[in-house]
């Protein structure tokens, strides 16, 4: 057992898989010599050499395209897109190429690759470097989408993603990079598509992802301490595949649903889950399903503004409290 940062976990997760499988290769901008702009890939070049760990030009389409062509022919590439906002400059690969080639070819082509990318707000970087864009990927049929919230999950889900035979978009949260967590020694391999109940509770189910997970947990403690409300907190972890069973199972016990989403409101993953619940668990619900999201606006840079724009512990707790008491 060691204490690692989320950032260190990224490098360890990649190293674990590169050690296991010589077909795992890694490319991206400033990822090799510089160890990544978030220093999340430090040491990989030294450990695996310049043939497997490669710096690229600023050419996101070439990066993802090259990953796809390599994946298609037998390698297992991990590609870094530095900030998830930049998925927009290579979105054709995300939306039209990776997820469709297997289907269009009637199963002849494969696309086993991982795109890892720094997602989310909190660094005062402003509207073009702070977005939570997991929904850009969730809405595309054919992709898998994960977003770990702890160092341990970073490693386990990275292993699952690399070993998965389909394209996986792996969202690392920039504000979690410095966060520490206990990580067991030895190989860690998780499974895609499993949510985790982090805190059992009976009064309401709170779903959260990535940076919102610690906030939801803190809000649950606050609700317990201040209002005697006992919330079940679930880390969704994987948007596709989605662990609907764990979510619906929880709801069958608590009868109330809250989602905590960092994304701007419209068409967020919470909307999808709420719509599943509204259809399949309508009679389980004792009250409105409530989404707690970032307002539907571009993100501001200023610290004071950024601090109030994402769902906070207080906003989560207050929303749940008010909703349960109305």
């Amino acid at each position, binding site marked *: 057992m060691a204490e690692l940062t989320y950032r260190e976990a990224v490098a360890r997760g990649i190293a674990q898989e590169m050690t296991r499988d010589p077909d795992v290769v890694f490319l991206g901008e400033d990822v090799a010599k510089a160890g990544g702009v978030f220093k999340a890939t430090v040491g990989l070049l030294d450990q695996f050499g310049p043939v497997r760990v490669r710096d690229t*030009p600023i050419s996101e389409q070439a990066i993802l395209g090259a*990953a796809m*062509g390599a994946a*298609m022919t037998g390698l297992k590439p991990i590609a870094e897109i530095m900030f998830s906002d930049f998925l927009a400059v290579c979105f054709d690969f995300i939306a039209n190429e990776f997820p469709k080639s*297997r289907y269009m070819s009637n199963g002849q082509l494969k696309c086993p690759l991982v795109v890892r990318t720094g997602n989310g707000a909190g660094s005062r970087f402003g509207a073009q470097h702070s977005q939570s864009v997991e929904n850009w990927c969730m809405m595309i*049929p054919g992709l*898998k989408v994960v977003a770990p919230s702890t160092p341990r999950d970073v490693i386990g889900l990275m292993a699952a993603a690399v070993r998965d*035979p389909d394209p996986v978009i792996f969202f690392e949260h920039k504000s979690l990079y410095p966060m520490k967590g206990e990580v067991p020694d030895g190989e860690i391999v998780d499974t895609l598509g499993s949510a985790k109940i982090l805190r059992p509770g009976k009064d309401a189910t709170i779903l959260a992802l990535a940076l919102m997970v610690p906030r939801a947990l803190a809000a649950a403690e606050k609700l317990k301490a201040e209002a005697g409300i006992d919330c079940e907190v679930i880390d969704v972890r994987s948007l596709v595949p*989605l662990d609907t069973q764990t979510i619906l199972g929880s709801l069958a016990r608590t009868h109330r649903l809250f989602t905590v989403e960092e994304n701007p409101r419209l068409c967020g993953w919470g909307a999808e889950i709420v719509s*599943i619940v509204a259809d399949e668990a309508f009679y389980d619900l004792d009250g409105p399903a409530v989404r707690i999201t970032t307002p539907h606006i571009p993100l501001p840079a200023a610290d004071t503004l950024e601090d109030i724009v994402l769902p906070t512990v207080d906003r989560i707790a207050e929303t749940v409290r008010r909703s349960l008491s109305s």
Partner: protein
Amino acid sequence: MLKKQGRPPTAARKPQLNDDIGEELRLRMYGMQVTIRQAEQRAYDLFLQNLVKGTSHLSLGQEAVATGFAAAMRPRDLSFCTYRGHAHTLARGVPVEKVLGELMQRDNGLMRGKGGSMHLTSAEHGVMGSYAIIGAHLPIACGAAWRAQYKGTGDVAVCFFGDGTTNIGAFHEAVNFASVWKLPVVFVCENNLYMEYTPIGDVIPVKHPAADRASAYGLEAIVIDGNDADAVYRAACAAYAKARAGGGPSLVECLTYRHSGHSRADPATYRPKGELEAWLKRDPIKIYRERLLQFGVEQDAIDAVDAEVRRDVDEATEKCKAAGPPPLEILTTDVYADGGWAWRN
């Protein structure tokens, strides 16, 4: 001096069948061009009978490019095509039936109708997909070449695209990337003078959409006669040899012309008078047939090839007509590698 005086002028130009290409390969290349021609003409006929669904983009007139590049490939080399990919797919040896079946969206099609005419794929023949978003497959071909480099296989990735494609961002990123990484990829620009309906000359400030961009990537400017399968074959051999030797990518611009419209919906009325006629005189199949004759191949042998291809295309057509539509169960198969489409439990 002796040459000039001693031989009659025709004899001086008398070509040699036993040159670097040779008779057998030439007959194969002739057969392939005729196969592509007849298969595509048949596709057009079937479209007129409302039997080809969706869209389709014919390469009538461009058969020499597909033929020459494919003929120079080794079996493990990989082709990356566009929506205008029937020719390249056939040129790798994919049966006519499979291609027509896909165009007719039948169960016997290459992808059982799931992909359609713009996405012809036959992995077993090295046809690693046809891509319908302009430019996307150039970076993808880089990736396949990267794998070949990484594994030291000696395989080459060959990527076909049009003149209009040279203006999209992915072109630029891919060619630069390939050049910096010295990837064994050959970029083949089929300059047929038009994008959909707009002449390429209207949208570039240079003469050659590909060759005039080559130096930006440290590459040689290569322009070849895309209607002469021999010229294409030789350019292909040179590019592949360079790639296999670790010399990196090539960008080859082939001058050619499509005889029909951009897609089945296009009567191609935007072409200046006489342009088509001029290019028909340079029809690659006509050129090649004349060359074979000139080389001493018998008319009968040539006719036999034509007839055999026709039998093959007729037979394929019948099989396709007899084939049913894809079964509805395949609607949701092969979204993911587990064979299904489950995005939830």
